[in-house]
């Protein structure tokens, strides 16, 4: 016996949207799978915060050390009402965006130079390897002394972390372009510049986008480290300040804000990638 269930009407409408009853059943099975994945994802998130809250209230954990969701919420509301939330968010996001864009641009330009001159690439190779394996964070004190305790030093930190990786990834991408594509344009008498602009760069766009995705994460690392070292504003500053005054609510609040901001920026790059791929796909479908 059937009870009224909104799921049933959804089920029949999905099944009816299939080309055949079997196809409809397939669509329904796919829908169910997708729905259960989302359900599990949401449940995990809710359960995590609920358990955290309960554990803090029941005294299983010390909320003074590990904070608790309701206190984080309180901190958020306070930061919102005195307006400083948006100031800190804006500072950190701006620094990250600048570091990210500069890292990608400079990295691509250097990669082009390395492609252009095989001699230069060979000559610089050991230095790139060393710089790539070195933990760039150690350069922090240098940036502070040379550039001052300001945002320039923070952006330099972000750049230092993302630049070398970008150069390596993009340059490798350039080298992996099918040599026959280059041969093809050479049969038309293409100059080196034309080989670069007509073949190497467009063929490497997917690689460059992949580098962008990595760079987003690296820029965040650079900016937060930079803020730990020098800043008076930003999410990294909030976290380090919170730690110094033993306000763990502030630390956890900045951690959560950072997680959301980083995820959003990553999604933006992913969206750009999707749009780019769609434009390549073109309007024509046969």
């Amino acid at each position, binding site marked *: 016996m059937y009870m009224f269930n909104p799921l049933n009407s959804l089920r029949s409408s999905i099944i009816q949207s299939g080309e055949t009853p079997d196809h409809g059943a397939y669509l329904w099975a796919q829908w169910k799978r997708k729905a259960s994945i989302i359900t599990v994802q949401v449940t995990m998130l809710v359960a995590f915060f609920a358990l955290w809250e309960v554990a803090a209230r029941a005294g299983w954990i010390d909320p003074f050390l590990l904070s608790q969701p309701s206190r984080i919420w309180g901190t958020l509301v306070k930061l919102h009402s005195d307006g400083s939330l948006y100031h800190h968010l804006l500072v950190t996001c701006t620094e990250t965006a600048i570091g990210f864009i500069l890292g990608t641009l400079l990295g691509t330009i250097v990669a082009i130079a390395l492609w252009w001159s095989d001699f230069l690439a060979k000559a610089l190779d050991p230095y790139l390897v060393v710089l790539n394996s070195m933990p760039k964070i150690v350069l922090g004190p240098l940036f502070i002394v040379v550039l001052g305790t300001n945002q320039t030093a923070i952006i330099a930190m972000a750049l230092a972390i993302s630049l070398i990786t970008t150069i390596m990834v993009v340059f490798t991408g350039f080298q992996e372009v*099918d040599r026959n594509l280059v041969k093809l344009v050479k049969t038309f008498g293409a100059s080196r510049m034309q080989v670069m602009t007509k073949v190497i760069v467009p063929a490497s766009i997917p690689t460059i986008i992949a580098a962008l995705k990595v760079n987003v994460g690296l820029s965040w690392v650079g900016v937060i480290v930079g803020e730990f070292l020098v800043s008076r504003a930003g999410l990294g500053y909030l976290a380090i300040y919170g730690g110094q005054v033993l306000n763990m609510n502030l630390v956890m609040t900045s951690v959560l804000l950072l997680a959301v901001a980083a995820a959003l920026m990553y999604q933006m790059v992913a969206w750009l990638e999707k749009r780019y791929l769609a434009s390549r796909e073109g309007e024509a479908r046969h």
Partner: protein
Amino acid sequence: MPFIELKDISLKYMTLEGETHALSGLSIDVEQGQFVGIVGPSGCGKSTLLSLIAGLIKPTSGQVLVGGTPVKGPSAQVGYMLQQDYLFEWRTIEQNCLLGLELTGSAIRESSRQQVAEMLTDYGLGSFQKSYPRHLSGGMRQRAALVRTLATSPDVLLLDEPFSALDYHTRLAMQEEVYEILRAARKTVLLVTHDIPEAVAMCDRVYVLTKRPGRVKADIHIELAEVRPSPMQARKAPEFGKFFNRIWEELDVHVQPVELTSK
């Protein structure tokens, strides 16, 4: 006077491991409007020979002449078709076909665009102009590559196993099409191939090269009793088998017997 002339060509490659003698004392000539096949064992320098004529590489010694003038570098006079179509996936078919004109700086002319559009229509790609290569079948892609090569109006076409990546049926169909198109346009054609029937069916003359360092071993004129209307007709000619055997013998292919391991 022959339209393409290779006079006593030698070519050596240097690597750290040593010196590779790719071609040695090779001489070839091709009359205007002739279809000439080049066959030979793998690695005998067939593709190298095309690169020489296209001006992509220079011989160590000897002379390459096209239309009576020495080849100094790539020119619009010579078109080159590679083993695969190598269409750029990020360009539409139309943009791909305009590539050569773009690189030589004449794509801005409306007449060139018009000409490419007409060729695409003639070759059954009219409705695919704005499509991307991945939406086309293998044969259609190869046709688009042909349009791209012909767009710069070369007198000479160098075909480097252009059908080898296609399935057998498509290959036969493309041989017919390309033959018809290039004959009608009175192009001079050099076809490098492993496929002996393809060489006999399409070419007026076939050069057989030796293994490395490549030299001319035989120069075979494919003279059929009747005028060859198409490669498919040539395949049906009574002399077809004779020419096939002649080339096969010249190639002198020895398959090394497999050492059977004892039980």
